[in-house]
């Protein structure tokens, strides 16, 4: 029997304890701005991020909780970025939620719990632990979406999110139980070994795999399981949209790595085919539907679908003709894509929140009109995000696309080469609607009642840092790339 090995889950223990402490402490906060709650939450997140960073540098892969969780660079890297993303989200959100009657202890506690779910998922070593983390994260997010009780759109979005999310969880759980039936274990390593030896019933495995991939597709928000994405992104309060669009994407990637790669690599030829279909569908639907959007949040939702298509595309090129030589290359490009995408998404929703003010959501693309005249800095920052999402160098989004395309071309198979060409052509369509946002900000005149942006110096400064990161990682992407690829290589080695 494996030992408990408590230090492995130390960051999660800190997170759980502090989430409870903050929930209680908030009861005694009389300050309407809830400064204490906010700063305690931020401090907790900073500590968790640092703990994960420290563990990442320590580097040794260890198992804990009787083999239920694993401490490896991949998990720590994802958890680190997730904690960072949550920190940034809350910082952007603080001025937004106050006038919308959401500045309550629940907002912060639930955010912490959803992060806890993310952390559990990305370091799970057991199918049930993956599921446990997923549910913790999802339930927190459902509740967060519904936090504005008296707001019809939010409530509707929460219902939609909950029903479809529960369905997806059901799929996933069903698939996992199939795996258990075929292999007799829930332990990821053990499942991998059994499949590798060819002892399991192939039909049951593939049958279960379909459900697992479908469940993952829901969580990624990939077509054809993308229906909830635009509605939830649109309906949820923007602060919560960002909570959904940030860290959970990293979690979905972690989940895909743990389930598909570490557990079911033996079935790679099967799930890669499914992912190819899903990624192409996502690229098509995401890019084409985004053109028709007038609402900025919906546009970013469809853009998220398209971007996820690229991530899935990278995951498809790991195992080529039964050979895993290119796996490190493929999965690290997917990880790099995910990390840079989250970085960019944080900023773009941050701008949307900054522009919103009391009684006015600033969600339409036309609300950005003439932003360059109202606030040249914020317009420039938003333009950086848009060009990055479109994949124009020297922004970091370009290198993300580049590394995915490189992984495809390196397989040296005509089929993958065509996939790369299709992906490239579809991203050209994508460039159109990102450019349209830039056009509205720079070429259109501001509306008559639009004012110069003022106030929120802190948020503006953070957005500028976020924009600078998109540019600097674009000029010098080497470090971040190396970080991602070493995490993947070491995860594959175990």
């Amino acid at each position, binding site marked *: 029997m494996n030992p408990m090995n408590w230090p492995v889950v130390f960051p999660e223990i800190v997170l759980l304890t502090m989430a409870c402490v903050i929930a209680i402490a908030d009861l005694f906060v009389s300050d309407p701005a809830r400064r204490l709650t906010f700063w305690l939450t931020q401090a907790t997140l900073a500590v968790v991020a640092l703990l994960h960073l420290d563990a990442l540098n320590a580097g040794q892969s260890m198992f804990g909780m009787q083999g239920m969780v694993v401490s490896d660079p991949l998990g720590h890297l994802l958890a680190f970025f997730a904690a960072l993303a949550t920190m940034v989200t809350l910082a952007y959100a603080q001025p937004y939620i106050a006038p919308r009657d959401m500045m309550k202890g629940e907002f912060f506690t639930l955010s912490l719990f959803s992060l806890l779910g993310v952390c559990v998922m990305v370091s799970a070593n057991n199918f049930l632990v993956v599921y446990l983390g997923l549910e913790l994260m999802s339930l927190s997010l459902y509740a967060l979406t519904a936090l504005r009780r008296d707001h019809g759109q939010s409530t509707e979005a929460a219902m939609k999110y909950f029903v479809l999310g529960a369905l997806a969880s059901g799929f996933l759980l069903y698939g996992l139980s199939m795996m258990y039936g075929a292999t007799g274990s829930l332990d990821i390593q053990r499942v991998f070994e059994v499949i590798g030896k060819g002892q399991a019933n192939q039909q049951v495995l593939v049958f279960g795999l379909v459900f697992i991939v479908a469940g993952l597709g829901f969580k990624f928000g990939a077509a054809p399981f993308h229906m909830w994405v635009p509605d939830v992104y649109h309906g949820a309060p923007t602060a919560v949209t960002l909570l959904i669009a940030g860290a959970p994407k990293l979690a979905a990637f972690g989940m895909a790595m743990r389930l598909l790669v570490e557990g079911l690599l033996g079935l790679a030829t099967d799930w890669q085919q499914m992912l190819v279909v899903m990624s192409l569908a996502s690229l098509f639907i995401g890019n084409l539907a985004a053109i028709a959007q007038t609402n900025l949040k919906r546009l970013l939702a469809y853009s998220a679908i398209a971007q996820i298509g690229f991530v899935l595309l990278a995951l498809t090129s790991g195992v080529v003709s039964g050979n895993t030589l290119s796996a490190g290359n493929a999965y690290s490009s997917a990880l790099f894509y995910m990390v840079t995408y989250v970085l960019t998404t944080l900023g773009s929703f941050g701008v949307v929140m900054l522009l919103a003010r009391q009684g006015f959501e600033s969600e339409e693309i036309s609300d950005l009109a003439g932003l360059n005249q109202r606030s040249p800095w914020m317009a420039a920052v938003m333009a950086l995000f848009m060009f990055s999402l479109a994949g124009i160098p020297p922004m970091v989004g370009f290198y993300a696309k580049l590394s995915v395309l490189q992984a495809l071309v390196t397989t040296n198979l005509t089929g993958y080469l065509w996939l790369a060409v299709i992906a490239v052509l579809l991203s*050209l369509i994508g460039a159109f609607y990102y450019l349209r946002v830039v056009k509205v900000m720079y*070429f259109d005149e501001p509306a008559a009642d639009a004012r110069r942006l003022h106030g929120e110096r802190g948020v503006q400064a953070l957005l500028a840092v976020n924009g600078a990161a998109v540019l600097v990682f674009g000029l010098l992407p080497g470090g971040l790339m190396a970080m991602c690829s070493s995490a993947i290589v070491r995860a594959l080695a175990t």
Partner: protein
Amino acid sequence: MGLLSVAIWLPILVGGVLLALGRDEHAGTVRWIALLGAFAGFLVTIPLITGFDVTSAAMQFQEKLPWIERFKAFYHLGVDGIAVWFVPLTAFITVIVVISAWQVITERVNQYMGAFLILSGLMVGVFSALDGLLFYVFFEATLIPMYIIIGIWGGPKRVYAAFKFFLYTLLGSLLMLIALLYLYFKSGGSFAILDWHKLPLPLSAQSLLFFAFFAAFSVKVPMWPVHTWLPDAHVEAPTGGSVVLAAIMLKLGAYGFLRFSLPIAPDASREWAWLIIALSLIAVIYIGLVALVQQDMKKLVAYSSIAHMGFVTLGFFIFSELGVSGGIVQMISHGFISGAMFLCIGVLYDRMHSREIADYGGVVNTMPKFAAFAVFFAMANSGLPGTSGFVGEWMVILGTVKANFWLAALAATALIFGAAYNLWMVKRVYFGEVANPHVKALTDIDSREFLMLALLAVAVMWMGLYPKPFTDVMHVSVTQLLQHVAQSKLN
């Protein structure tokens, strides 16, 4: 930091500072800082010419630093005889553009100046990158400032033109990106352009690469039939945008043929040369005729640019020293002349707010100094001996005669059409009676406008009367390139 790095990053740095800190309240200061930045950027490129070893075909002023280790991509810069003149040309044109905008641009001056300075640095980067990925990054990044320039300060249909410009060029370059990745894979994980030159490839792969590069560069040049974005972009862009577009951005495409298509896929280049020659001749003749019927002066010059760039690609693909050198000379010369032509139109437009030929007539009576310049540049544009326009076209035609007399005869018709559309425009706009009260009210150019036109006129004359400094520099590199292209790389 080497010279090339300074030439790239100095303008970008100054541009970035202007973007970040400039305000319209301090427009005067912004202008002077922009001018100083552009001028300093030009000064640092002069040692590139004076210190260039004309007897060597090797890359000079090289700098190599590790950049992205995962891709084994390097920050590798260097210029040979083919590229070196374009660096000072870019910086020079930027100085002119800053001067030309001095009083014309009054809103968001810092963004205008900043965009042009950044654009200048990026374009120098394209000409000096020796790493495929670095080249691509610079090549693509130039789209962003140009998109903004056309979109903010352009004419009534500026949004359409900006989108068309961006998406058209992006489509071409994305296909090139796949080609670059394919080469990266085939060369065993190297982005070094010079390694790719030596890489043996089968004809089928070469052809695919050739067409992928063709997609990127033919759009940029632009060649017939993918030229349609250019008239739109030129007409809608502000004067400075048109100048940079015509003078330098089009050259990025032609330069790409020399740096990528010819040396990386020499067999495919020879295989498909007929296609390029045919398209070039169509550009020269058909687009020349199209230019003849234009009502809008900017459109006329835009079409004439396409026709002149046809000469460049024609020269490249007849694979003779005269042809290739002539093409490069034509590129540099067209940089000066087309820039000057657009500036002349800008001078008129600033006063009359019209580019229609029909709105003018007899300008020489009210603006004698300006008309002298304008007529001179129109003559240069039609290839008058003694101006730079003559040298390049003459060399290309001479090279073509050696290859095939009839091709040369067809190409030479361009001189006739060129003279026709230029002189006809001159007649209608500048000569004759004063056409209307607006023309009567025109004031002649001031010292600022005189300065920018005079600088360009000197350059055009210099290159026309004494082209030796230009041809000497490129001679060894061109010879080596042609030897390389003549050898088969099939394996």
